[in-house]
């Protein structure tokens, strides 16, 4: 919210520079985004009088002499058509600075000396409504006499600093000059002088002029109105126009300007009706009928709901309460009678209507943040005071005030000691009283008990903690010391899941994997690229009701889509090889928790491509992760359909799948724009944590020698080595220390469709040296199971 400092000064003194003011306000709780010179940094532009003006032949230029109050008049060449002898104009002197930063220097124009520049309103960035002019058609001509050589800024109403306040959500009372002035006076230790709200009435009776009926007290807790007769529409005075300008508002005419000015001054949105056009001279505030249609001031026809509050005349709804008025009763040049409305509407109701209709206005924004019902009448009276002051009409005697349930004044009692202990600052009790009174509370002290009456405009307070904050922010947050945490010690540390992630991350980093992070949401189209069957639960992920877009509309049921997208991104950025991983939650709404939330499963996804990468390198990384938790798995062929059907596997133990690894299916690669083969692995970290075996004692080092046997078996190409080895292990019994596959041979010697696989088995007992017979017996069993179950026999 922008306000000119001069307007704030009307109510509270600011004895410091804008910079220091900004600092003091920030530190007492009123945010300031920045300050800016309303004149845009204009310098050395003064009032001058054109003494002589001669046309320069063959051009549109004029050669002028201009009196700027100096000893000698200045010679200035000017091209404006409206320049003329005797006119008072703004003159940019040698060394002047214009609002857009342009510097004016003495120079020559077509050989003629020019010692400055005569300025248009556009060049000075002064809008028409602030100071009437012909805009960029010609020079700004002053319409009154001013001392020659005097600064033009005060004359044009731009001698001000605008402060851009950032008001906290709980302080709607500060969204106006009066509120800011109250805070200013408290922060600066200066006096606050409120606006004059006295009204001079001309007789008559407001109740005879207009009837007001409020049908919904909940949505409209207060409605006040006054009537102005003999309205004299005209321009409002410069002081009002310049305050509106500094705040970024346009001056229109005195009546409209008064309503806008009240909004700036009191934060109360007002509405001015042309009473002559209000049918039946009757105002009804009621809920809309279902499906009722209303054309708002912006020309849009809107269908209303019964939750929408409307302002009606005798025949129909004419405006949306607190949001936008109707066209019919708009103030025009011809307006004779005005009814001022100043009301309080329910913030939630306004918010919901504004949202439902997609219609946000300055007024609706203020009502949403909260407009105090108690101060409505003061604002209305102030408006009428301004009508008197501006001589914009005659105020009819009496007010309409529908206020069925005034709020009682709020009282809070607090303990000085508890406030001090909460703040961690020994704010003296009398300082608390002083601060609170300065903030318009009525505070009194009895022993430790602080009794506080809260001013009506402060609707954000409800307890001791709030009083603590009020005292502390004015006493100064910089008094807060820094004490180390005391009290009972607590066991700090990371959660088991975080611990697991740390360990897995470190391991993968060692293997060269880089961690990536993707958004937690994705799009159905993206998921569809995986080509999962229709009935796969991942095809029905949890949907966001108000997503940013189609591609971020659902919570991801798998990390694979994002991994493939990221791999593709890197491939398409000419990165030769990349090994990536992500650890994040996947969301499953089909198995809700007790609280009805989707199951969130922390998941690890690996993805890699490059010359050094094949199925086995990624499987190795996945196995290492599992082994790191004491889970030794077997590989089984198979996996989701987005994998290459002949190059994917599951790592299982005891029928539980711990990881899936596979090369990406060529069709899926194409859909993700992947230019190279890639391998991906998925591991459920939550499950891994559940099954993790804690590290126990280490095995003692062997004391007896090992016996080693090699075995080469010929088998059909289709025989899977993994299960074969599992059977070999089982058959060899507990004397087997390890088994390794060390060669696979395919060639004519073993026959077409066959392969020869060589294994090395190591046997050892931990209590004796094994005999040949013992080992031979085990080897016989191994051979038998290979032959019987897998058709794998010793190579002849």
């Amino acid at each position, binding site marked *: 919210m922008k306000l000119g400092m001069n307007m704030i000064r009307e109510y509270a003194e600011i004895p410091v520079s804008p910079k220091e003011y900004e600092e003091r306000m920030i530190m*007492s*709780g009123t945010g300031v985004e920045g300050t800016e010179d309303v004149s845009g940094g204009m310098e050395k532009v003064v009032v001058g009088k054109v003494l002589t003006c001669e046309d320069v032949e063959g051009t549109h230029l004029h050669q002028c002499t201009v009196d700027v109050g100096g000893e000698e008049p200045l010679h200035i060449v000017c091209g404006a058509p409206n320049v003329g002898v005797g006119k008072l104009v703004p003159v940019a002197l040698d060394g002047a600075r214009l609002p857009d930063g342009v510097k004016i220097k003495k120079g020559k124009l077509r050989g003629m000396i020019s010692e400055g520049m005569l300025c248009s309103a556009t060049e000075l960035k002064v809008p028409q409504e602030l100071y009437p002019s012909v805009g960029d058609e010609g020079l700004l001509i002053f319409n009154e006499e001013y001392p020659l050589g005097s600064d033009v800024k005060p004359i044009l109403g731009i001698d001000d600093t605008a402060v851009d306040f950032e008001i906290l*959500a*709980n302080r709607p009372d500060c969204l106006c000059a009066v509120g800011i002035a109250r805070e200013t006076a408290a922060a600066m230790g200066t006096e606050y002088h409120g606006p004059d709200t006295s009204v001079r009435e001309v007789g008559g009776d407001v109740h005879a002029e207009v009837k007001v009926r409020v049908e919904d007290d909940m949505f409209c807790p207060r409605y006040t109105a006054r009537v102005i007769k003999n309205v004299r529409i005209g321009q409002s005075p410069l002081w009002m126009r310049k305050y509106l300008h500094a705040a970024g508002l346009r001056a229109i005419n005195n009546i409209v300007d008064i309503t806008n000015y009240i909004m700036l001054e009191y934060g109360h949105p007002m509405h001015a009706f042309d009473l002559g056009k209000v049918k039946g001279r009757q105002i009804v505030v009621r809920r809309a009928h279902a499906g009722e249609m209303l054309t708002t001031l912006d020309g849009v026809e809107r269908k209303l709901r019964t939750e929408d509050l409307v302002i009606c005349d005798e025949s129909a709804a004419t405006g949306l309460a607190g949001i936008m008025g109707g066209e019919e009763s708009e103030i025009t040049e011809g307006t004779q009678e005005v009814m001022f409305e100043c009301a309080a509407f329910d913030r*939630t109701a306004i918010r*919901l209507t504004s949202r439902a209709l997609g219609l946000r206005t300055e007024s609706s924004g203020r009502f949403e943040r*909260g407009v105090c019902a108690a101060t409505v009448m003061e604002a209305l009276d102030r408006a009428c005071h301004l009508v008197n002051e501006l001589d914009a009409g005659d105020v009819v005697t009496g007010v309409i005030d529908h206020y069925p349930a005034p709020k009682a004044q709020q009282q809070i009692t607090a303990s000085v000691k508890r406030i001090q*202990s*909460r*703040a*961690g*600052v020994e704010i003296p009790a009398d300082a608390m009283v002083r601060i609170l009174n300065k903030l318009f509370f009525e505070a009194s002290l009895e022993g430790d008990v602080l009794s506080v009456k809260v001013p009506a405009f402060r609707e954000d307070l*409800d307890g001791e*903690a709030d009083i*603590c*904050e009020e005292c502390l922010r004015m006493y100064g*947050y910089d008094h*807060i*010391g*820094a*004490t*180390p*945490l005391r*009290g009972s010690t*607590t*066991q700090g*540390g990371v*959660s088991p899941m*975080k611990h697991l992630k740390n360990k897995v*991350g470190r391991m993968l*980093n*060692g*293997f060269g994997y*880089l*961690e*990536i*992070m*993707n*958004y*937690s*949401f994705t799009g159905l189209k993206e998921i569809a690229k995986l080509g999962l069957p229709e009935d796969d639960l991942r095809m029905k992920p*949890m949907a*966001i*009701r*108000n*997503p*940013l877009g189609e591609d971020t509309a659902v919570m991801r049921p798998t990390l694979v889509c994002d991994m493939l997208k990221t791999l593709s*991104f*890197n491939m398409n*950025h000419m*990165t030769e090889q990349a*090994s*990536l*991983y992500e650890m994040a939650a996947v*969301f499953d709404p089909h198995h809700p*928790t007790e609280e*009805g*939330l*989707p199951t*969130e499963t922390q998941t690890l996804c690996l993805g890699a491509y490059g010359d050094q990468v094949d199925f086995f390198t990624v499987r190795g990384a996945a196995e290492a992760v599992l082994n790191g938790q004491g889970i030794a798995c077997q590989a089984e062929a198979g996996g989701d359909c987005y994998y290459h059907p002949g190059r994917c596997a599951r790592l299982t133990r005891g029928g539980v799948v711990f990881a899936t690894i596979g090369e990406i299916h060529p069709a899926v690669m194409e859909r993700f724009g992947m230019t190279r083969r890639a391998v991906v692995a998925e591991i459920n970290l939550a499950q891994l944590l559940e099954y993790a075996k804690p590290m126990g004692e280490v095995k003692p080092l062997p004391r007896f020698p090992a016996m080693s046997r090699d075995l080469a078996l010929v088998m059909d190409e289709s025989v899977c080595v993994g299960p074969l080895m599992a059977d070999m292990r089982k058959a060899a019994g507990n004397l087997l220390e390890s088994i390794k596959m060390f060669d696979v041979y395919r060639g004519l010697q073993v026959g077409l469709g066959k392969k020869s696989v060589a294994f090395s088995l190591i046997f050892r007992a931990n209590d004796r040296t094994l005999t040949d017979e013992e080992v031979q017996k085990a080897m016989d069993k191994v051979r038998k199971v290979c032959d019987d179950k897998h058709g794998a026999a010793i190579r002849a």
Partner: protein
Amino acid sequence: MSVVDTLRELKEQVDKELNDLNGSAGLEALRVKVLGKKGELTALLKGMGQLAPEERPKVGAQINEVREWLTERMNQRLNAIQAAEREAAIQSEIIDVTEPHDLPVTGSAHPITLVMDELIDCFSGLGFEVMEGPEVELDHYNFELMNLPKNHPARDAQDTFYMDDNIVLRTHTSPMQARAMLTRKPPIRIICPGRVYRADEVDATHSPVFHQMEGLVVDENVSMSDLRGTLEAFAKKLYGADVSTRFRPSFFPFTEPSAEVDLTCSACHGKGCRICKDTGWVEVLGCGMVNPKVLEMCGIDSHKYSGFAFGIGLERIAMKRYGLTDMRLLYEGDARLLGQLR
């Protein structure tokens, strides 16, 4: 030829052959030839039987003397030859150690993880325990227990993603405050790092997904100065001992009093620069004393206990630390960027 002569000849001959030798293999052959079971010297010893008994001791002694001399000589020679051979091998194995070569490929955690882990490290040292919770959260925890009842205008500022009327994507890590208080008894000291969501369009400084770390302490007699002490400890650990903090009054529905915390701008050390917009301060987090209403709603006696809470945005810290000017870089997964981290 007398034995003496034979011995002398043998000595000379072996000496010569030793000198001519240039490999350890030849030396072994020579040793066998002279000193082996069937060697020349052994033959002489065996031939002693044919000598007169009185000559035997003398000749025996001479033979043994020669044997010792030869053994010694051969050992010397062996050492020399082995040394030469090793030297030759070494010379032949010289490599150019200055040649470039491929480094072992190492990976790295994500910038956000790196920052998160550093913060966890700092706070766990102060007795804070890491607690994790759902990202898809009940409105009840995310808003209502945080003193943001339905239709509260401050909810708008949070730009919430809704699943349905009661389920949202958590807009902050604060709901974990409620979850912690409802399941634990004071003293409570927890931190909750994690993903949070706001319906912000993606640009250089906004992301609909970002990370926060919530901190919560509930105990007897906890004050605003304890909060400041804790945050200063964190700030100094993260940014060095000369960093100072500034508390500015602020508003959060779930804390009272509330503060925004600024740290001395690390680029200009508080003098004022472009990064801190000439203020000398950089905003890092919001915090405050837990609102007594929140304590009560979460079943904690607000007369006996008080607490403080803070929420730190991790993206801002990570971006500053690694000089990233566009938040999108964090979520793009570009190996060329991530590969630079360590």
